[in-house]
């Protein structure tokens, strides 16, 4: 009886297959409509812009990228492809616009990579200090981080550049802080390690072997005995390369009458932006690290304390390794922000990608095309950093499993 009723009800409804078909068609139509609307809007904007450009006698083309740039930038190298490996050469007015953009990208990457390394170091230290048992240390670290995060990065950059670096003694009367560091108006000088002249291909080969073996010795997946053996071979390779004349010499900055020369020279612009971004990002990273440490289960601290580990040992051996796993996503976001922050270099005339692109656009009159190129480069950079972070994350997850 129930069966019959159920059937009766069902027959009064449209057959499912028809309804399903209607639903599917409607579904596809709505998707088509959304996609069409977005594409249509983009085309409309593009057409309007195109029409405007043609009415001014400009066509949309990327050909200008290979034309000579006719301007120079203060620093930056662009890759020149001769054979299988690029050689980095400085650019000048005869370089193509593309070469200029490459030099700008080079500077951006240079700042970003250095800043990622050093801001992580400083930030981790600052973050750990936030949890110090000493009230003064704890609150000083907090105040520094707070000050950094509550003021705009641009005023920090302006400050370092105009109020610190440009107020330094002018060239010739340089402040020689020590043998290792020379600071003056024309920039910051550090000793530069370079290969000794006697280093040949044979010694280079041994160095490569040594690096490979020492790196392998650091991998935990090998048993301890193997790792000791690898370490031994690596050290032997170092000895061999040294015997063959391989060495690293330091090129010291020398004070002269017209300013310091030699060594590793950072221009004031480069120094300012590097200091700004390192300090600024360290402020954010300290907060990330602190959050990570505090978020770690309390049980870990108690377990470590029960084992009789000191606070410092606990942080170094138990807490930090685990915290890094937790904070990788936040760190990645910070690294992406940091890379984007380099674009403020334009405010002090540091020739990073955005600054150079502005000059290229002005010189060539190709604002629109240049912005597209530069936007694409920034997109790729961000994606590259996320991809690397994902890779690291997955490796860590695998090691854990």
């Amino acid at each position, binding site marked *: 009886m129930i069966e019959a009723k159920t059937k009766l009800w069902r027959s009064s409804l449209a057959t499912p297959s028809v309804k399903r078909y209607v639903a599917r068609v409607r579904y596809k139509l709505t998707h088509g409509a959304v996609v069409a609307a977005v594409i249509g809007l983009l085309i409309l904007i593009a057409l309007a812009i195109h029409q405007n450009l043609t009415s001014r006698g400009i066509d949309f083309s990327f050909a200008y990228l290979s034309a000579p740039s006719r301007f120079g930038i203060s620093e930056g190298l662009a890759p020149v492809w001769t054979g299988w490996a690029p050689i980095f050469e400085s650019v000048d007015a005869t370089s193509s616009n593309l070469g200029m953009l490459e030099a700008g990208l080079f500077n951006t990457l240079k700042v970003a990579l250095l800043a990622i390394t050093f801001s992580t170091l400083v930030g981790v230290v600052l973050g750990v200090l936030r949890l110090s048992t000493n*009230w003064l*240390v704890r609150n000083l670290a907090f105040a520094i981080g707070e000050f950094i995060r*509550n003021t705009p990065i641009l005023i920090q950059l302006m400050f370092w550049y105009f109020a610190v670096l440009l107020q330094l003694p002018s060239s010739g009367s340089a402040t020689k802080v020590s043998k290792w560091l020379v600071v003056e108006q024309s920039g910051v000088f550090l000793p530069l390690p370079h290969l000794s002249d006697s280093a040949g291909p044979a010694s280079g080969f041994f160095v490569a072997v040594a690096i490979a073996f020492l790196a392998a010795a650091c991998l935990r997946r090998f048993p301890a005995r193997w790792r000791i053996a690898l370490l031994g071979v690596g050290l032997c390779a170092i000895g061999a390369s040294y015997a063959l004349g391989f060495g690293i010499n330091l090129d010291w900055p020398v004070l002269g009458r017209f300013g310091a020369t030699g060594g590793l020279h950072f221009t004031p612009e480069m120094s300012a932006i590097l200091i700004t971004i390192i300090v600024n990002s360290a402020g954010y990273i300290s907060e990330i690290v602190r959050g990570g440490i505090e978020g770690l289960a309390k049980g870990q601290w108690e377990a470590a304390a029960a084992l009789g580990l000191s606070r410092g040992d606990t942080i170094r051996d138990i807490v930090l390794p685990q915290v890094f796993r937790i904070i990788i996503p936040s760190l990645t976001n910070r690294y992406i922000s940091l890379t*984007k922050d380099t674009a403020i270099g334009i405010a002090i005339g540091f020739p990073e990608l*955005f600054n150079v692109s502005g000059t290229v656009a002005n010189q060539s009159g190709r604002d629109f095309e240049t*912005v597209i190129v530069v936007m694409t480069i920034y997109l790729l950079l961000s994606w590259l950093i996320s991809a690397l972070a994902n890779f690291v994350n997955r490796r860590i997850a695998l090691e854990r499993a």
Partner: protein
Amino acid sequence: MIIATLHSWARRNLFANLIDSILSILIVTALGWLLTVFLRWVIWDAYWQRIYESLRLFLVGQFPEDQTWRAWVALALLCTAVGAVLLPWSRRLGVAIWLIACGAAVFVLVPPGLDRWGGLLLSIMLTVVVSTASLPLGILFAFGRSSRNPSLRACCTGYIEVMRSVPLILVVYWIWITVPLFMPEVSISSLARGMIGYTVFNAAYVAEYVRSGLQAVPRGQREAARSLGMSNWTISTEIVLPQALRVVQPALVGNVLDVFNGATLVFIIGLMDFLRAGQLILVDPAASGQTNEVYLFMFAVYFVIGSAITFGSRRMEAHMHRSTR
């Protein structure tokens, strides 16, 4: 009694062990020395006259002198707006007053021309307009990105990811040059274009905050609403969104600080905000000796405003943790 408490506090927090004691003494000495030098400079050596003379440029830029009352009215309106959302009234009323007061502030300031806005006035108005405008946009994109409709989701995800991958300064500059190309017959002031660009950029960040809030709403809430027969629209607007916004409220206030700090970057399109005003003052050779004074003043203003916003955000967060328990 008090001395005993202080003593035990110091023992625990400053002199717990040998290293702590040495650190404490070192830091106290260093801080004391720095503070003495700094205060001596601030009180005797610094030349504050320049700041005082340039206060007008700092605060309102090139805003016409006979129109200054407009800036005061706008300030009063903005205070009303902030007060309205802070007071524990009905949320709807607060938001309504915020919108009306901010709109009125813009309306009052427009007659002398958008190009005349400058200094702190410009920084604050830019922050207010961009934060207010990017919230509804961000909510739309957040819903779009968590929609079940794959094409809508793809479009919103693409937009958010692209905006979050490029620098703000680039987006602002790009919109600034593109808008006139797109609409050549209408002339739109640099400030308006800057606001559009900044909103377009910031909406992507707001969208991600809101989306994290949407994900934080327990599944049971949607299920209960669905089992009452509510439509998707009712569920989104009445049940999910209010709870999501409450969760991300502190983050959104934090975003206001980001907007305020990022507003310094509008120098790229030739606007003179607070920081730029300080730069201009220093360009004047007569002021070249006052670099430190000018930077200290600007840092102080930014730090006070920034700390106030951070404080608000933290208090909201603490309040939220208390009330959810």
